[in-house]
């Protein structure tokens, strides 16, 4: 800090600071007054109405600034390096691949797809089931109204949000070094991911539960465990099953790419065929994937509708 700055920062006494003109504050005050006048309407019967202040303009500006910053960082930087026309001329590459998935489509590849697809579905189902089994007790531990201790539920919630930060693929990539390549890591990665999201969805429901029936049953002389099973469990069983079914839908999609890190299933074939540019085969895999997801989603949706 040089001599001049020191003088300025220490030489200000309280009274001097108050006397100093404050152009920014004055400007903001004037702006606020103008805005208030703008929002006020006087009706013909003399009543004045003040519209509530809207932040939407401010918010849009903030979003716009962030957008421009990121745009410059990625899109701007890209077109600094490459000509725009090159980009335009290469757009057909994308459409070509799509077209080849259609024109080179070859059903004979179907026989090779069935087994990996079954693997993928099994990984998703088993992983979801394992994750679901662990999520139920932990969800109770995370619910502030059940454990009554804010510390316990807070700690459990914090750990859970850590678990939820990674996508399934990152778990699979790490687990591959511990358990070796194979469907086992796909199942484990799916289980961890499912555990994370399912527990969160569950404790959000549990925390809104009406616990008076628990108290009522306890008052009849039932033990705490018995009261819990007859009052709390039935209230959340529906949500639990429906959330589990919902997780299956998510997991089928995400386990389709787990093969990229060695977790088995249809992902390995996607990787191989993409590298060899056999887009017809990719087309077959995508159709099988589409149909499998469609079937499972419809079953799941039907069951969820029945549950609610």
């Amino acid at each position: 800090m040089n001599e001049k700055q020191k003088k300025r920062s220490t030489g200000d006494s309280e009274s001097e600071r108050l006397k100093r003109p404050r152009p920014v504050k004055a400007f903001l005050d004037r702006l606020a007054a103008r805005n208030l006048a703008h929002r006020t309407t006087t009706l013909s019967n003399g009543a004045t109405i003040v519209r509530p202040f809207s932040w939407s303009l401010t918010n849009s500006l903030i979003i716009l600034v962030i957008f421009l910053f990121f745009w410059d960082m990625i899109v701007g930087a890209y077109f600094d390096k490459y000509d725009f026309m090159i980009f335009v001329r290469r757009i057909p590459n994308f459409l070509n691949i799509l077209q080849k998935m259609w024109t080179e489509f070859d059903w004979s590849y179907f026989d090779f797809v069935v087994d990996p697809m079954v693997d993928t579905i099994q990984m998703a189902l088993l992983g979801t089931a394992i994750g679901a089994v662990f999520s139920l007790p932990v969800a109770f531990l995370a619910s502030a109204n059940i454990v009554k201790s804010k510390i316990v539920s807070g700690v459990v919630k914090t750990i859970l949000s850590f678990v939820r930060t990674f996508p399934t693929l990152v778990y699979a990539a790490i687990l591959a070094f511990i358990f070796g390549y194979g469907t086992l890591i796909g199942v484990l990665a799916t289980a961890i991911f499912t555990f994370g999201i399912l527990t969160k969805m569950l404790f959000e429901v549990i925390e809104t539960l009406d616990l008076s029936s628990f108290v009522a049953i306890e008052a009849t002389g039932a033990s705490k465990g018995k009261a819990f099973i007859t009052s709390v469990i039935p209230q959340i069983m529906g949500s639990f099953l429906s959330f589990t079914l919902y997780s299956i839908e998510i997991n089928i999609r995400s386990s389709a790419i787990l093969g990229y890190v060695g977790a088995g299933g249809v992902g390995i074939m996607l990787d191989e065929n993409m590298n060899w540019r056999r887009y017809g085969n990719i087309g077959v895999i995508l159709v099988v994937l589409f149909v499998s997801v469609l079937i499972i989603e419809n079953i799941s949706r039907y069951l969820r509708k029945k549950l609610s």
Partner: protein
Amino acid sequence: MKPAILEMYDKRPRTLVRNTILFVLMAVILVWSWETMDYGGINENGAVVARNILDALIRPNEAWLFNFTATGTSIPLLMLETVAIGFLGTILGAILALPFAFLSARNIVGPVMSNVGNTIISIIRTFPIFILGLMFIRVTGPGPLAGVLTIGIASIGMISKLYVEIIEDIDKGILLALDATGATRFQKIRYGIIPQLTANFISTAIYRFEINVRNATILGLVGAGGIGFTLIAALGAYRWKDAAAALWGIIVVVLVIEIISTKIRSKLVSGE
């Protein structure tokens, strides 16, 4: 016991048969699924590696983690790029989803068109993120721009599905009320429809932004930018401390975004 109570007890829901069937069904599915498990990859190295990874997580490569300059590997900059991919991708997806959503909403285009629209949305959703990534790399070359386009297209499916639900939930009573005041068609859209949609649309987009940032962390695996490449390269070379630095980057950023997003969304839903 009083007869009234006995009568009520007699009327209790009987779910034993249903539950047994459900239970057996689940057990069969699980046993069938279990056959996929192969334990061939397990060897004694696994425990050592697990220990090393946990050690590394406690002491990650701090030179990478706290490198805020553009020289060398900087986890903060890579995470900024990852968030940028997620952000731009979400905006792209949220805008592209609008036509799909309006053209598949039952109360706007009728049941036939709505089924067609929903099928198209499902087809787009089938494309795994890596396939889209590799397809866009053929256009832009490897780099974050491919990631933005991938995330954008990949999020159309979920966003438009949620948009459709919001549009189908529109309260038509408000339009009737506006009719009664003599509002024009434009005024009806401006004051009757748009305010009903925007808050929920934005909330949907923010929710998808959370997912997109997570997805952007793995896009690097196929060369579409973000932190994924650094993470996978470090893992592949057994450089656990470097990988741990990347993992911490993901943890911090994703957690912060989740907290902010939850705050904003609860404000949006409660109407501030």
